[in-house]
């Protein structure tokens, strides 16, 4: 049984972690991922420069697109999560949102086919920026000691409860938040790429078998692959939105006053 299915030689079946490492392009420092990140940065710079080079009161098509992305982030993320203070951070959130969307969408662009965010290094750096940012902003607003006290000690609690609560608060604020931020993005993109690999490569493996029925049923695998590619668009947008929303929420909570 399994002998028929693994008849296709040369196909990377089953998909494994090794498929996430395409060969280096030029030496160990230039990989497909570095090029993709540079491409994303370049695309964003060119897009925002071109659309805002000559702003008009009645916007052109490009200016309208750039403005609606900025408006979405400012109104639905920054102001929703942080109130009036959020407007200051809206440009950073917009760039972060666009960068994550573009790099996530690389996962389904023909020719690129893998998202840099499916390597945990990239989400870690993005989460680290948010982490340092909310710690620094909290410490600057309240002073280091008061910020720590405010985020670790729950007011109005009988004192023996603090033994139970302080470790939980510490782990939540300083460990769980950045780790979940990075891991959520990484895991979604990793799993998405793996799903696409399973259906497309699996379809070719079924096509290469010598049984006519298995060959016919490979159509189902290809249909699933196409559906999953559209599903990945949704996941890419949603994960970028969630990442930026949570970043805004964390910064907002370190700006908040004691209640």
């Amino acid at each position: 049984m399994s002998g028929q299915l693994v008849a296709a030689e040369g196909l990377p079946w089953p998909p494994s972690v090794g498929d996430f490492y395409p060969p280096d392009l030029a030496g160990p420092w230039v990989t497909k991922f570095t090029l993709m990140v540079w491409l994303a940065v370049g695309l964003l710079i060119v897009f925002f420069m071109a659309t805002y080079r000559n702003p008009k009161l009645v916007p052109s098509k490009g200016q309208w697109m750039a403005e609606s992305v900025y408006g979405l982030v400012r109104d639905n993320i920054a102001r929703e999560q942080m109130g009036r203070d959020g407007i200051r951070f809206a440009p950073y959130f917009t760039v972060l949102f666009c960068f994550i969307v573009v790099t996530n969408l690389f996962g389904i662009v023909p020719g690129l086919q893998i998202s840099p965010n499916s390597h945990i290094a990239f989400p870690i750096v993005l989460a680290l920026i948010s982490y340092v940012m909310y710690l620094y902003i909290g410490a600057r607003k309240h002073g280091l000691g008061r910020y720590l006290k405010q985020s670790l000690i729950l007011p109005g609690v009988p004192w023996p409860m603090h033994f139970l609560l302080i470790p939980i608060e510490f782990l939540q604020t300083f460990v769980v938040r950045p780790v979940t931020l990075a891991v959520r993005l990484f895991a979604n993109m990793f799993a998405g790429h793996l799903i696409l690999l399973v259906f497309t490569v699996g379809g070719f493996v079924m096509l290469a078998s010598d049984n006519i029925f298995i060959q016919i049923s490979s159509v189902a695998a290809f249909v699933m692959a196409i559906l999953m590619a559209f599903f990945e668009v949704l996941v890419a947008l949603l994960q970028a939105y969630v990442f930026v929303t949570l970043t805004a929420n964390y910064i907002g909570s370190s700006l908040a006053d004691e209640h």
Partner: protein
Amino acid sequence: MADNPHRRSPDEHSSEGVAGAVLGYLLAGIVVWGFLGWLAGEFLGLPTGVGIAVGMMLGAAGAIYLIMKRLSA
């Protein structure tokens, strides 16, 4: 853009923030107290599993207490 009449006051928590915070607090509580319970069980020579079970219960209880105090005031 017209002002949304259901706009919340900024100090109220948003639903995405609440869901993330609930998960984070629970995970933190269960992990840290489960680990401390496991350590206590190892040192006191309790039967396997008792320390970690008690620790996880305690951590979940503390996390739920914290969530109710912090997020639903």
